[in-house]
């Protein structure tokens, strides 16, 4: 075995000098959340770095809904799931149809619609929240899941259309032409040629929309207020309403809430990094 030279050791040490702070910086808030989830209340509030008696009791309380703040945990979990799934499906449907129309069918005015969508994408969502809240009131949708679903579809679609349009443009035109020669109708081209080829981008965009909806706090908290209508992040925010909030339960619920998106993210990372970063910034 060859001993590393002094220079190699120095380089490695320098890299570690960056890597260790990066690791700590990244992990501390997440570890802190985990620590609370496995600590009994006394340990959590005493500032220990590891509890004397680690326990899963907090999870038991959450899963059995044994606390005032948690009495609708399953309903809220289900609300989050349902809304995220609906946003994923609707966004995929709307954005794929629009991207196909603009990129493959070259619909008149498509370029303008794309620019409008891009414009919406750049306007910060928090600015649209105020008029959106009022609009949903006018439509009579406040406190109805559809308000949040439609709002999130509105926010997710522009980016989805844009990424899917970019991906569509890369598919060779000859494929469509060949299909037309064989007598395929437009819908058959869409279903049999276009959709299968677009699968990787569709997975990325579907994941993007689902995560966006699952993680959304601001719109959910404006549009839904009834305890049995709200999603999990709003329920987490509601914990803060009391002065003596059960922080260990808040963190446990937060930990459970954070697991599905993290798992989805890592499962689809391959698609996410390729599909989304390529669209996010074209240099």
């Amino acid at each position, binding site marked *: 075995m060859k001993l590393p030279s002094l220079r190699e050791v120095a380089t490695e040490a320098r890299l570690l000098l960056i890597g260790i702070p990066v690791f700590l910086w990244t992990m*501390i808030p997440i570890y802190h959340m985990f620590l609370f989830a496995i600590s009994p209340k006394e340990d959590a509030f005493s500032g220990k770095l590891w509890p004397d008696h680690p326990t899963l009791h907090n999870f038991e309380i959450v899963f059995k809904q044994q606390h005032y703040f948690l009495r609708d945990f399953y309903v809220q979990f289900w609300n989050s799931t349902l809304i995220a799934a609906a946003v994923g499906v609707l966004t995929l449907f709307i954005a794929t149809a629009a991207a196909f129309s603009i990129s493959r069918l070259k619909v008149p005015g498509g370029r303008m619609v794309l620019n409008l969508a891009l414009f919406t994408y*750049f306007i910060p969502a928090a600015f649209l929240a105020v008029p959106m809240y009022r609009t949903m009131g006018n439509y009579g949708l406040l406190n109805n899941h559809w308000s949040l679903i439609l709002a999130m579809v509105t926010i997710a679609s522009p980016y989805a259309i844009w990424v899917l349009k970019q991906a569509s443009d890369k598919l060779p035109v000859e494929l469509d032409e060949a299909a037309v020669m064989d007598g395929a109708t437009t819908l058959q081209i869409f279903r049999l040629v276009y959709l299968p080829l677009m699968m990787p981008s569709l997975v990325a965009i579907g994941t993007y929309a689902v995560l966006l909806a699952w993680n959304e706090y601001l719109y959910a908290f404006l549009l839904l207020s009834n305890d049995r209508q709200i999603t999990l992040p709003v329920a987490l925010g509601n914990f803060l309403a009391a002065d003596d909030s059960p922080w260990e339960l808040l963190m446990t619920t937060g930990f459970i809430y954070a697991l599905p998106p993290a798992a989805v993210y890592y499962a689809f990372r391959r698609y996410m990094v390729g599909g989304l970063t390529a669209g996010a910034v074209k240099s």
Partner: protein
Amino acid sequence: MAITLSGDQSIPAPPLSSRLTPAQVWGIVLLAPYLLVFLAFVVYPVCYGLWLARAPSNYVALYNDPIFARAAVNTLIFLVIGINIKMLIALFLSGFFAQQRTWIKWLSVIFILPWAVPSIPTILSVRFMLNPEWGVISHLIFSFTGDDGPNWLNDPTVALTMAIGVHIWKSLPFWTLILITGRLAIAHDLFEAAEVDGASWWQKFRYITWPSMQTLYVTCTLLSMIWTLGDFNSVYLLTGGGPADLTHVLSTLGIRYLRLDQLSLAMASIVCAMPFVLPLVYFMMKRLSR
């Protein structure tokens, strides 16, 4: 087309359906769902909001509200200082993560966690860490120095700094990832040639890395600034705008007015941000639709 436009009715224009190919008809049908969503949930709310904010008295009221001025300044600090620090760190870390090492590869998988997990529980986690009585940071300060730690979130400057820190924690992985992509696109033989010529790391950065990345870097910085204008969570969940409404930014201020039932003020505060947002958006669109 010219004939119909001139108003000559003696030659009727062909009916719409015969002028369009079936593919174009399908194009319009498939585009319709998005157009409906756009009209119902973007055009209508924006027009309605502008109409609500039309009275000049709203802007006088905003001008006289010290919280608005403070929020505008906070937003500028957030954008100009916060984002530039974040992007510089991202640029630096992109160089670190571009190193070929197994442990750095694993670290990059962990590094992406803040981006992958929802922001609410992690921001609340930071909030509790900073709790002056029970938070772990105050406990650590007490056990090392015997003094009570500062009351972090009760000082507007510190609280805003912490909110910027939370924002950086959350979005640093995303921008680093994008800058890594940019860095890996640089031809490797350029660095090898520079190595042969005995260039220092600074010369390599100055004459190879930076020239190939500067467009991407500026684009990312602008994009991050636009998006950060809408970063509601970092401020709202950490400080709630407090103490004494001194740490609001424009996105939380709008919601604050909304909660106080001052909808027209909420809209007016957003309209006031538009002179800053629209040029940035215009510039970004120019860049991206080249």
